[in-house]
């Protein structure tokens, strides 16, 4: 089947999509956008979090056909331009606080934090933890991710 959607502001089309494919697979393997990550592919880890029509979703749990005609923003589409100066404040905060180690959870977390701060510009620590409970990180123990969110909220 053919899937057409707007991804990071551009209309994109994927042909010969097997109906069992996920949005995650289409993004990663057909549209050249591997930023959303494939850590569990069952909606437990959040590393594939993208915006679908403005709402954060696990791209692994969205069937490719469900994305047809929709608007998607991935981590690759958050920064207005290329280069370090153009990064989104959430991306800059993750770098500044050392919240990135292996980085496999980072794209999904950055989308999730971007969404949190859009909804709640000044979250408390329990708010942050609750909002990010669906994003697993195995490297950091989350302390520096907490610091990153606090920093992003004030920058």
């Amino acid at each position, binding site marked *: 089947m053919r899937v057409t959607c707007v991804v990071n502001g551009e209309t994109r089309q994927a042909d010969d999509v*097997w109906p*069992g*494919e996920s949005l995650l697979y289409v993004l*990663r*393997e057909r549209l*050249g*956008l*591997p*930023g*959303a*990550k*494939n*850590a*569990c*592919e*069952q909606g*437990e*880890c959040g*590393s594939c979090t993208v915006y679908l029509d403005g709402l954060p979703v696990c791209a692994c749990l969205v069937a490719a056909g469900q994305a047809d005609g929709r608007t998607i923003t*991935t*981590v*690759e589409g*958050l*920064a207005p331009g290329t*280069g*370090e100066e153009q*990064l989104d404040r959430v*991306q*800059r905060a*993750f*770098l500044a606080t*050392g919240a*990135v*180690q*292996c*980085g*496999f*959870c*980072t*794209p999904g977390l*950055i989308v999730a934090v971007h969404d949190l701060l859009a909804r709640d510009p000044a979250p408390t620590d*329990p708010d*942050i*933890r*609750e909002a*990010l*409970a*669906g*994003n*697993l*990180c*195995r*490297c*950091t*123990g*989350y*302390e*520096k*991710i*907490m610091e990153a969110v606090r920093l992003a909220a004030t920058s």
Partner: protein
Amino acid sequence: MSTLTREPTTVAGGVGTSAPRPDGVLKVSGEFAYSSDLWADEMLWGATVRSPHPSAEIRAVDITGALAVPGVYAVLTAADVPGAKRYGLEIVDQPVLAVDEVRYEGEPVALVAADHPETARRAAARIKVEYAVRAPVTDPEEALSRGDLVRHVPVHRFASAGGDALTADVVVTGTYEVGMQDQAFLGPESGLAVPAEDGGIDLFVATQWLHVDQKQVAACLALAPEQVRLRLAGVGGAFGAREDLSMQVHASLLALHTGKPVKMVYGREESFFGHVHRHPARLEYEHGADRTGKLVYVKARIVLDGGAYTSSTPAVVANAATLGVGPYDVPTVVVDAYGVYTNNPPCGAMRGFGAVQACFAYESQMDKLAAAIGVDPVEVRRRNAMTTGSVMPTGQIVSGPAPVEELLSLVRDRPLPPEATGDPRERPGGVANTTRGEGVVRGVGYAIGIKNVCFSEGFDDFSTARVRLSVLGGEPAVLVHTAAAEVGQGLVTVQAQIARTELGVSQVTVATADTSVGSAGSSSASRQTYMTGGAVRAACQAVRATVLERTGRADALSLVDGKVVASDGSVVASLVELLGEGDVEETVEWRHKPTMPLDPVTGQGDAHVQYAFAAHRAVVDVDTELGLVRVVEIATAQDVGKAVNPQAVVGQIQGGTAQGLGLAVMEEIQVVDGVIRNPSFTDYLIPTILDMPPMEVDVLERGDPDAPYGLRGVGEPPTISSTPAVVAAIRAATGLALTRVPVRPDHIALAP
């Protein structure tokens, strides 16, 4: 919050600064290429057929159904492996594809390559394997009695010649169990194998040691090592799980058979079968002490379940034995550690291996001893704390700093966290709203651990670095090239920092690790900053010597900000001028001080390179009615010798502590009759951000004169003692014995 005491540094982005990760911008923008992100024209996808049985004979394999699936390019079995049929880190015993039998659930039996991953999976499901199922051996004690021994390491040391009777005024005993933990890195096993024109293979993979992979892959493919070229793809965490091969030989076989690039990416379920795990252990301990709590002897018997194949079990057993009494002075030690073969999943490397299991037992014992003599847990540890000059149970003298007492004092003296606020999210059970505070009891627990750094027991442990100084765009620039695996820990950052400090040049590039440069050894055993850091420093020093020679001046010179400076501070020349004669490049192979094998009978010998220490204090709230635990805060103190990158050091300590917390209260691969019951992130729980508390960190820098910059391996110690600290806190809250980790709600709520 972190407190750091460190000497000032004069080099921007050099050693001792929190220089940013060079791969950071790519990682936050989604453009960093992990091993599962790779793509090539005409690429095929590989899939693996795995045994559903923990033990069976293979009577027949019928691949015709798979070959008939449109889009399938190859179906391979053991008969198609052209070289060695088996591989292994040291003991070559694990089949590339099962030969006549399977010995654990998930053992690879056959491979498929197809033009779509789903086609490959469906074709794999059509391969018919006829098994004659056998009863699996799953009890390590039974395996031991059958003689299925991987290794027995005795460590026997007596306070007086001729051996001592093990008697003391105060004796405490206990038997402890540690469940099977998974490394649960987020980036699954994956990579891309590309057939090359010379008949060889170019392999892009996530691994911990490129050269040990190269050696094993080449042997299995019957190729010369130089025909197997590995390049490190982006690594989504490792923690020991990438020491052994996973898809490396499989993808290469498929690529050579089809003549096309082959990508393999495990799903999460397959990942639970695709790598070794932390050894489950049963540990019987007896501690004898005088009435003041001063240890007289420790006797222990430790049995580690190695599963179906050897992997790194021999080293795990040695660690458990040699580190088995902890960072304490013990005059008489009789420790026997055994690793056995069973039909359970193979176990091998995971952060802190051997030391993690032992620490849970010996620290539980120290708490028992404290209670027996009526002093607090920190005090009994202080009374026995080792110091510089202490003698290990192996007879090895601890020559470097051993600030055990100071680390304990640091975590003890931190202010305790405030009482719970009343926000239900900060209670045990969290948003599930299972309590309003009734039945909730707070507890505080302590633990400290010891870990060896680098490879031990006489292993020829080295790393290689190539450093080139040249002029780029009119500025001096350094290229550092090693084969050392950046797995997330920040090794790329550290290599650049060292080059900046040694050569006084700000523009430093670290090349992608590959096998075109000599081996760096493994990103294991907390060794890479020490070893590859040491190699990069030595190569930079060699480059510096060559550059200084070009000045033709003998007065002590140094490199500062792209200039050669004399001892009086005057500028002698610019690097750009001196490099006009050509680039300077040096390659250095660097070794730590040699170690010795352990005596096979007594376990005596200077087997380890360096010892590292971390202490933890855990504060928990326990809902004693439901058995739910919320860790409120963990304080850690660790001696790192020299914080080469303070931000990365704290990140390692916090991340390691989190994995220890996971083992304490959540994480276990549940194996029943050799079968894994929970191979998913739905059922194998790793800590989320809701499970992790704030972590306070004290970093000590007591330089080790033998190590580069005085540094001490950082990665493993925080994982070792956080587990017993959390369990001690739960014991303090509940009064229960809690002899097994992970502690489950029923251990608390349904305790007799």
